[in-house]
C-alpha cells in the first residue's frame, strides 16, 4: 500500500485517492529539528578537541547528520496518506506498521500549523481533530505537506462536511431558527437569600487548613508560637481567663464549637457569593447561557448539542430540606477545576425539571419497582475482608509468648481480639448497606438513570444515544456473586462516573442490550 510511487505534483488538489507522501523537504525539517539536540554532543566534541583529535569533529558531526537523514528518509518512505471520497487514511511506521482511517464525518476541524522554518519552506503541519478522547499525541497528523496542498485538503474536508450537515438538517425537517426566538429567555436565577443559603451549605473549614499551612510554611508570620501551650497558658493566667474557663469548661467548649461553625459558615458564604453572585441562566437560541460572578464575571454558552448528561446532586442535609444542584456534562469543561457545567447551584426539584425540560431531559422517577438494584452480596465483601485481615493479624499477636503490646491494653484477652475487627467490620457492613441501598438504576427506553451515594446523593440522567461504549467487567468477587459492573464511555466530563455497580449478570446483559438497541 505504501510502496506505490507517490510522486507529488506541485499542487494536486483533485485528491483522487492515490497514496501521497509527505513533502520531501520534510527531511530538511527533521535535520533542523535536530539543531537543539546537537547540544548534547558538546561534551563529545569537547572531548575530541581536548584529546587532540580536533580533525575528527567535522566527520563525526557529518556522520551523525547522515544517520539522522537516513532514518528520517526510511520513515518518510514508510509514511503515506490517501484521501478517498469520504475518508483520509494514513499508513505509517517502520517496524510497527499502523494504518489509520479517519472518516470525513468524524473530522471536526482541520488544523494547519506552520513554524518559522516551515513557513520559509512553504510547508505546513496538518492535524485532524476528531472527537476522540485520547490525548493530542494520538491524533492524526501530516507533518508536513505543502501549504497549498494543506489548504486544499482543509477546503475539501470542510466542503464534504457542509454538504452532509445540510442534508441532515433538511432530512430532519428542522425549521430555520426564528428571529423572534433568538431572544434570550431567563430560565433560572439565584436570589440573594438563596445565594446566602447556598453559601451556608458550602460550609467549609478550609480556612483553618489555609491558616495552618501558612503557619507551617512561614514560622514567623506571627510574633509568637501558636503551637506552644505555655504561651496560651501564660496569656489566660495573666488575664484571669484561666479561672473563668476552669469554672465554665463546658461553656468554653460550646463557645469554641460555635466559633468554628460561624467561621466555617462565613467561609462558605464568601466563596459562594464570590462565585455565584448574580447567577442567571438564560435559554438562548442554541442552548443555555450562564452569567455569574462578583469579582470575576463569567459568561458561558452551553450549546444543547454538546450536553451529554445531566447530574443532579445534593447533600444529606440539603436533601432533607429539598434542595438540589444541577450540572450538565458537556464536551467542553467548565473552567480549570470543574469538568461539568453548573447550571443551578441550589434549586427545588420543580425548578430543575423546568431547566431539564428545556434540553429534552426528563427526571421521571417512575415507580419503586422500575428501579433495579445491585447484588446485595456486595454489602458483605468489605466487612468480610476487614474481619479476616483483623483476625489474621491479631490472633498470632495474642499467641506470641510475650504479647506485651496487646496484653497491656486488652486485658480481657481473646474476646477483644476478635471483638475489635468485629466492630470495624460491623461499621463497614453498615456503610456497605447504605451504599447498596442508595445505588439503583433504571432505563426508561430513552434515558438511563443512575442513582448513587447516601452522604451526597447523585442522580445521573444519561440519554442512551450519548453512550460511546459499554464495558461489562467483573473480578473474582463479582464472579462468585454472578454479578457485573457496567461502565459507560461518555464524551466530556471527568469520566468514570457513569457506572452501574454489581448488577446481576442477566440484568447487566439485558440492560446493555437494551441501551445498545436504543442508540
Amino acid at each position, binding site marked *: 500500500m505504501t510502496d506505490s510511487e507517490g510522486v507529488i505534483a506541485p499542487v494536486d488538489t483533485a485528491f483522487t485517492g492515490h497514496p501521497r507522501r509527505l513533502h520531501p523537504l520534510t527531511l530538511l525539517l527533521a535535520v533542523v529539528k535536530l539543531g537543539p539536540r546537537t547540544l548534547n554532543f558538546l561534551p563529545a566534541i569537547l572531548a575530541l578537541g581536548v584529546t587532540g583529535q580536533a580533525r575528527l569533529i567535522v566527520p563525526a558531526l557529518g556522520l551523525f547528520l547522515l544517520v539522522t537523514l537516513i532514518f528520517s528518509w526510511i520513515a518518510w518512505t514508510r509514511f503515506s496518506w490517501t484521501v478517498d471520497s469520504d*475518508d483520509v487514511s494514513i499508513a505509517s*511506521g517502520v*517496524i*510497527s*506498521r*499502523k*494504518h*489509520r*482511517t*479517519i*472518516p470525513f*464525518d*468524524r473530522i471536526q476541524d482541520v488544523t494547519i500549523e506552520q513554524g518559522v522554518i516551515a513557513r520559509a519552506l512553504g510547508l505546513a503541519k496538518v492535524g485532524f481533530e*476528531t*472527537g*476522540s*478522547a*485520547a490525548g493530542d499525541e*494520538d491524533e*492524526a497528523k501530516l507533518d508536513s505537506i505543502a501549504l497549498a496542498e494543506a489548504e486544499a485538503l482543509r477546503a475539501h474536508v470542510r466542503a464534504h*462536511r457542509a454538504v*452532509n*450537515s445540510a442534508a*441532515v*438538517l433538511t432530512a*430532519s425537517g*428542522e425549521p430555520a431558527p426564528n428571529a423572534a426566538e433568538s431572544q434570550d429567555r431567563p430560565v433560572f436565577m439565584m436570589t440573594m437569600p438563596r445565594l446566602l443559603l447556598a453559601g451556608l451549605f458550602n460550609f467549609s473549614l478550609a480556612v483553618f487548613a489555609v491558616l495552618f499551612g501558612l503557619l507551617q510554611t512561614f514560622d514567623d508570620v506571627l510574633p509568637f508560637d501558636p503551637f506552644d501551650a505555655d504561651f496560651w497558658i501564660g496569656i489566660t493566667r495573666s488575664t484571669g481567663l484561666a479561672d473563668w474557663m476552669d469554672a465554665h469548661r463546658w461553656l468554653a467548649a460550646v463557645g469554641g464549637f460555635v466559633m468554628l461553625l460561624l467561621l466555617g459558615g462565613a467561609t462558605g458564604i464568601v466563596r459562594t457569593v464570590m462565585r455565584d453572585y448574580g447567577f442567571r441562566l438564560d435559554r438562548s437560541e442554541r442552548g443555555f447561557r450562564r452569567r455569574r460572578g462578583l469579582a470575576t464575571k463569567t459568561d458561558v454558552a452551553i450549546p444543547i*448539542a454538546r450536553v451529554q448528561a445531566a447530574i443532579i446532586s445534593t447533600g444529606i442535609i440539603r436533601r432533607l430540606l429539598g434542595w438540589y444542584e444541577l450540572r450538565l456534562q458537556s464536551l467542553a469543561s467548565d473552567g480549570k477545576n470543574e469538568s461539568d457545567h453548573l447550571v443551578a447551584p441550589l434549586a427545588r426539584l420543580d425548578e430543575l425539571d423546568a431547566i431539564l425540560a428545556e434540553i429534552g431531559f426528563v427526571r421521571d422517577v417512575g415507580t419503586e419497582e422500575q428501579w433495579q438494584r445491585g447484588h446485595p452480596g456486595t454489602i458483605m465483601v468489605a466487612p468480610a475482608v476487614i474481619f479476616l485481615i483483623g483476625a489474621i493479624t491479631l490472633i498470632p499477636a495474642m499467641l506470641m509468648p510475650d504479647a506485651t503490646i496487646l496484653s497491656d491494653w486488652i486485658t480481657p484477652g481473646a474476646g477483644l481480639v476478635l471483638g475489635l475487627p468485629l466492630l470495624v467490620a460491623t461499621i463497614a457492613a453498615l456503610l456497605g448497606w447504605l451504599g447498596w441501598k442508595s445505588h439503583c438504576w433504571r432505563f426508561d427506553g430513552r434515558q438511563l438513570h443512575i442513582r448513587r451515594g447516601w452522604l451526597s446523593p447523585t442522580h445521573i440522567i444519561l440519554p442512551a444515544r450519548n*453512550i*460511546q*461504549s*459499554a*464495558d*461489562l*467487567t*467483573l*473480578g*473474582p468477587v463479582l*464472579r462468585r456473586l454472578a454479578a*457485573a459492573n457496567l*461502565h*459507560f*464511555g*461518555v*464524551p*466530556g*466530563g*471527568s*469520566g*468514570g462516573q*457513569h457506572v452501574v455497580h454489581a448488577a446481576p*449478570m*442477566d440484568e447487566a*446483559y439485558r440492560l*446493555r*442490550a437494551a441501551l*445498545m438497541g436504543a*442508540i
Partner: protein
Amino acid sequence: MDIEPVAPEKADTELQPLEQGYLRVLRIEWAITMAVLLAIAAAVDLLVLRGNALPWGWLSGAVLLLSLWAVLTLPARQFLTWGHSEEGDALRVVHGYMFHTDTVVPFVRVQHIDVGQGPIERLCGVSHLVVHTAGTHNSIVTLPGLDPVRATEIRDSIRARIQTDFA
C-alpha cells in the same frame, strides 16, 4: 483446563476466537518478560547472594521454574479467554478470566480506526484493530490477534457504517 468463555449464552451472537498466531504472540511476549526477570535474578544471584547460606543459584532456579510454568501454561489460558464479534451494529471484545472485561462499541460511535502490526505480530502473521471513541472512559478499544485480511475487512465494514450524526 477448566476455562470456558464467560456466559456465552448471554450473548446475542456467538463469539469468535482469535487466530492461532496470537497464541504464539502471547508465548513470545511471555518469554521476553520472563527472560528479563531471569536476567535480573541471575544478576542478583551473581552479585548479591554469593556466599549465602542457601545453595548458590537458588533464585535463578526458582525463577527459571516459574518462567517455564508461565510460558508453557499462561498463554493458552489467556488466549482462550479472548473472543470477539462484529455481528449486528456493534463491535464486541471479550477478554480476561480473573478480571473479565466485555466491551461493546456501536459502529456508529467509532471516531477513527487503526489497523496495526508490530514486529512480533508480523512474525506470527496476525494484526490488531484499534477503534477510538469519544468517551472519556475506555476511549480506545483494541482487538488483537486478527488475520490481517480479516482485520482490513472489519475495518472496512465499520468504516461503511460511520455516518454523520451531528448537524
